[in-house]
């Protein structure tokens, strides 16, 4: 049997340890619950499996076959070959969590570099070594706020993705946290500041703001928000698209206490929505309440620089039910991809990339809204996603699809008030031709 080298040595090994049959090894399992075999087909050769998977792959249409303008937080970005090369090194991708630091210095240092770059981008003091994704990061942030200030409500904008709301509900249920929603301004698409002010009270543990928000719109009144939070002093949690941070201020500069986000865009493929990477960073004063692993720099017994997992008394393998989170396995390899990605781009590259995404977002929006029947839903300045309303979004979607282009995300199922609205997204990966193709198809269907 492949991948089981001792198959042919079974009898000899059994004899060596004074047993007769394999069954002797399982004599402690009561007969009553023993099974003879699994009702599954026998194993296939690698070649057979590859053939079978080719057939399945052919039933998918990748971004390369059908250019997609889907928004919704997840978008395809170019991944340098160097990133793929590094994460393909088996010393990295086959390793376990670095419990033995002397045998894991490489990964540990890479995480330290990641933490440093995330801290820089977000304007926070520290970052953890990753959470599962941007959605669970919101849940963990809410729990962390309550741990810090013992208050029991968490305030979110009504216009975050329904997925995040659902995950948040599940994460906060056990801790008895109430989630309150703040309306968005129907004109600008940004948070309704008056409603925010009304919603916050002395029991507000944290306020979550997304920038850019789910509609792609920048929350530009951050200074006012920071000011109004001073009254009841809830913690300020900001969710980011890390690529936008190359051209806009870091949330640290407008008073965030915790910064979170989906980090997939930094060097990880779409992977049908997973694998993902939850970014989680905070101010120094809250570090002992942070969920997940943290790597610290220290010395070995000879004074040489060394890295290890640190502040582990927060974690489940030490604290058990009193841990700050149950997270154990995180998203190590996605984190490594992001660290490599950020290193390949450098500060300058991220700035350029961010500017390109912003400019393309503007350009495509102008082209689409120039077509009669397609209007921009919100007046706020957007990054690389935007909401367009048309007369029959489903028809547009179907027409595009029939013609080999995937349109924006249909918002109506999740936001009934956004009838016939589509959330378009664009990145540096969308060539001029696919943009032109989209625009001409929209003209045809209009």
């Amino acid at each position: 049997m492949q991948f089981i080298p001792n198959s042919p040595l079974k009898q000899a090994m059994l004899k060596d340890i004074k047993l007769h049959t394999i069954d002797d090894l399982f004599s402690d399992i009561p007969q009553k619950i023993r099974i003879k075999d699994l009702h599954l087909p026998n194993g296939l050769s690698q070649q057979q499996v590859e053939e079978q998977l080719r057939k399945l792959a052919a039933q998918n249409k990748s971004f390369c076959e059908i250019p997609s303008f889907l928004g919704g937080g997840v978008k395809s970005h170019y991944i340098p070959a160097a990133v793929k090369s590094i994460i393909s090194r088996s010393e990295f991708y086959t390793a376990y969590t670095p419990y033995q630091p002397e045998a894991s210095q490489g990964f540990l240092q890479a995480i330290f570099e990641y933490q440093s770059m995330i801290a820089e981008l977000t304007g926070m003091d520290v970052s953890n070594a990753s959470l599962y994704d941007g959605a669970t990061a919101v849940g963990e942030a809410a729990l962390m706020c309550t741990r810090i200030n013992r208050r029991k409500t968490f305030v979110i904008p009504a216009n975050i993705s329904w997925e995040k709301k659902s995950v948040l509900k599940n994460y906060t249920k056990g801790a008895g946290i109430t989630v309150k929603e703040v309306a968005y301004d129907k004109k600008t698409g940004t948070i309704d500041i008056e409603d925010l002010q009304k919603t916050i009270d002395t029991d507000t543990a944290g306020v979550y703001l997304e920038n850019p928000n789910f509609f792609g719109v920048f929350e530009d009144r951050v200074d006012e928000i920071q000011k109004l939070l001073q009254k009841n002093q809830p913690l300020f949690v900001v969710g980011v698209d890390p690529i936008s941070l190359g051209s806009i201020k870091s949330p640290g500069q407008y008073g965030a206490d915790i910064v979170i986000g989906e980090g997939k865009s930094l060097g990880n493929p779409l992977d049908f929505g997973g694998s993902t990477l939850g970014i989680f960073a905070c101010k120094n004063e809250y570090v002992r309440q942070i969920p997940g692993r943290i790597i610290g720099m220290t010395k070995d017994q000879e004074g040489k620089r060394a890295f290890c997992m640190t502040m582990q008394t927060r974690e489940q393998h030490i604290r058990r039910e009193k841990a700050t989170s149950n997270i154990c396995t995180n998203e190590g390899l996605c984190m490594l991809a992001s660290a490599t990605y950020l290193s390949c781009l450098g500060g300058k590259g991220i700035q350029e990339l961010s500017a390109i995404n912003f400019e393309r977002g503007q350009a495509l929006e102008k082209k689409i809204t120039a077509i009669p029947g397609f209007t921009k839903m919100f007046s706020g300045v957007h990054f690389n996603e935007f909401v367009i309303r048309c007369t029959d979004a489903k028809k547009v979607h179907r027409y595009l699809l029939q013609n080999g282009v995937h349109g924006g995300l249909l918002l109506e199922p999740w936001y009934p008030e956004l009838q016939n609205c589509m959330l378009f997204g664009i990145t540096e990966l969308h060539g001029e031709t696919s943009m032109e193709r989209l625009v001409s198809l929209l003209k045809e269907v209009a």
Partner: protein
Amino acid sequence: MYRSAVYDEPLLKELEEQHEKERYTPTAGLPSSLQRTSPVNIPNLDETQVMRHFFHLSQMNYGIESGIYPLGSCTMKYNPKICEEISRWEQFALLHPSQDESTIQGTLKIMYELERLLAEITGMDHFTLQPAAGAQGEFTGLLLARAYYEYNKDCNRDEVILPDTSHGTNPASASMAGYHVIEIPSTKEGTVDLGMLKKALSEKTACFMLTNPNTLGIFESEIVDIARLVHRAGALLYYDGANMNAIMGKARPGDMGFDIVHLNLHKTFSTPHGGGGPGSGPVGVKQKLERFLPVPRIVKKQDTYGFCYDYPDSIGKIKAAYGNVSAMLKAYIYILLMGGNGLKETSEIAVLNANYMKKKLVDSHLYELPYKELRKHEFVISCERLLNTKGIRALDVGKRLLDYGLHPPTVYFPHIVKEALMIEPTESESKKTLDIYIDTLLRIAQENPELVKSAPHNTVVRRIDEVGAVKNPILTWKTLEKPKEMTVK
């Protein structure tokens, strides 16, 4: 003698040449309140420098192809290359989660079939693939339990019972799901104490969480009685699937009476650990819990596959999109490669390898085996005798193994074994490798204690000051720039 690669690898930050700060050109058109005003302070390096940096780091890291990696309860088996390669095909890797269903039929079919393969392997009725890791699977399972009791208007169940051998994630997940945790001590045999369990069970019990075989590697032979007791109390029985590699094709948690099961695809089904993820922690349930499973569910309508959200009693979502799909894909490929016969052989040889190692080590009388003789895919030995006679601790043995180029086992877990070494060789290792590991452990026990206590000697760094790392936290480049007493060699 083994020597690990050693580079005095600078930080990325230190690789950058110091030069004049460039002026930052803002992007036109952004709201002025958000306009970035200074450059992003991440080093600008050439690709050669970046590649060399991470290449050096990779060489200072131990992976499954470096050698045996027998961490107990972690199932560090070989990760077939074909799984990696196929998962990176762009028809799989470049799919957007919101793509029209007509353009993702291949992946939907794989997910649909994987759910059913896992159901057959575990004897459960339905699966969700959404949880991102084992711990998230536990959390999901406990939320399902909550939803089940709420649905049945049985609202006073706020306790989760677990044995003192349980993984740390069990109590942490229970606590996150809002439950009080009751830990019960194990018997002298290292198994669940039925008397204690009976005492702990009540109308307040929501779940009893159990790993079987448990973390000592011992099969809970009284599992049928345990299930009966738990169900008689109106509670649910939860299976932590971290040790599933021991019993595939031999016994199934569903047949034992478990109601909720999580698996770790990154353990049993060979998807790589990635230095700590991405993992995948699917959850299987019996029929009575199906209506609560996370949405979307994957459904088959004639010959096409699609997502269905129409489950009003569902707990909703536990993670964005559908879980770590790339890990699911790798596990699916692995199951096709192994087949029913191969998975059974996997467990048989994993258990044979563990018992082979255990017998050789225990016969030496240098290490002791607390509790029962027969183990499954892992076993826990104690270094207590070594500590008493030579002052050598489990930690020292582990560190000394590194000098021989071998990865240490899990140490100091489970907590009920003093000076524990928890060894899980998996089916991937050859007899030759097992013999080398055994011989090395025996040799270490007879080495000069000072040599062992000061190990490792041949690794990239010597023993690390972990206490210093907590007392004086340096967690980013920024902290480093603020000068402290840190000296760098």
